[in-house]
């Protein structure tokens, strides 16, 4: 682990340890009371989910069109993190929805497209795991297709009438709610960067070991 990664990890760990107090200090919302506070974890993980899918798509495009060999390692790392943060999003969302909407799940465009994006990256990981030789290119093609769903997830709440709150809610939040939100966004971003770097490094080392092993054999 490089030194900057270590510092970021320590900072992220400290921020997550402090998070319960910061979130506790935020006022309750008028209609939903305490329940809305799951939003402080739901929204940052949803952001990391979407950003990670974009990172995977862009890295795959670099790998496929510009033949950047190391880009594949970044794509794999980002794809795994998409699934990880996607699961956070898809678990915290229904927990809130149960109280706010009275149901766990609704087939509305935002929820459907998020679930589909999540499934696409699960499929990507399955392909990488079981596809055998050549699955790096295949996966890259697939990640580029998946990336375009991110746009769909993002605009879906603003374009269609859905029951999911639109993205325009964020700037209108009062300061007491805004501070814990941006605090959590920072903590999640730090965690994301640390995990991405570590996982990509692992993947790069794995490819190098594979290459050395092949060179040794032949």
């Amino acid at each position, binding site marked *: 682990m490089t030194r900057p990664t270590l510092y970021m990890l320590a900072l992220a760990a400290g921020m997550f340890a402090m998070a319960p107090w910061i979130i506790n200090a935020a006022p309750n919302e008028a209609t939903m009371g305490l329940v809305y506070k799951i939003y402080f974890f739901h929204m940052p993980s949803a952001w990391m989910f979407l950003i990670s899918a974009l990172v995977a798509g862009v890295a795959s495009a670099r790998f*496929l*069109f510009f033949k950047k060999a190391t880009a594949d390692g970044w794509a794999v790392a980002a794809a795994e993190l998409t699934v990880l943060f996607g699961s956070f999003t898809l678990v915290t969302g229904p927990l809130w929805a149960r109280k706010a909407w009275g149901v766990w799940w609704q087939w509305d465009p935002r929820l*459907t497209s998020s679930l*589909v994006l999540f*499934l*696409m990256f*699960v*499929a*990507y990981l*399955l*392909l990488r795991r*079981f*596809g*055998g*030789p*050549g*699955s790096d*290119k*295949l996966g*890259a*093609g*697939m990640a*580029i*297709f*998946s990336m*375009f769903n991110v746009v*769909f997830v993002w605009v879906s709440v603003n374009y269609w009438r859905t029951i999911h709150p639109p993205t325009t809610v964020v700037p209108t939040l009062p300061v007491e709610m805004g501070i814990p939100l941006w605090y959590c966004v920072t903590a999640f971003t730090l965690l994301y960067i640390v995990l991405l770097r570590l996982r990509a490094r692992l993947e790069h080392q794995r490819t190098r070991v594979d290459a050395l092993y092949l060179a040794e054999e032949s």
Partner: protein
Amino acid sequence: MSAFFRIVWIVVKKDITVEVRSLELLSTTIFFAITVVLMFSFGLVVEGRAVPDVAPAILWIAIAFSGTLALGRTFERERQNDTLRALLLAPADRPAIYVGKLTGILLLLALVELVLVPLVGLLFNAPIFAHPARLALALMAGSVGFCAVGTLFAAMLVRARSRDVLLPIMLYPMTVPVMIAGVRGTAALLQPEPELAIAQFWLALLATFDVVFLTLALWTFDPVMTD
């Protein structure tokens, strides 16, 4: 441009010739599609009466299943004697080869749909002749979207391990938007009183997905098929 379509036509003609000589894909896929619809009707026709409004969903599920089967088999045929490599080595535009394979599969799927639609109409009491032109348009647009992604993925998977299971795993999540638009659009057309405005909306959306998927597939086919 004419060179492009000439290659497309040559690839299509090759696939048609191979298929006409054996009829292997057409007969097995049609029979598979029929059995899928029958399985659904055993489950969903209760006391001689079909559960209402299930026809569009069953139609599209049957199309997706038989489409997957046809895609897998088409490229399995190209794999056996490594003919796909020969095809790719030909001095021809890669996108033209892709469009040729896509057209072949679409023709096959169109024939399957010619059997599927009346069968679903018969077993689930769907008024398929209320707006035949629009229904055909919806089926065509949906099949293009589904097969545009499917042809690319099946071609990519030719060299991969466990491709039989990986094709549906990759293809179904990717084509969910097409399936949703197809089912909703067809459902609007198959209502006792067809809702044409709604059908129009979903058709337009299907056309959008077609354009996006086709562009992406043409764009990525060349690099992913290069060794």
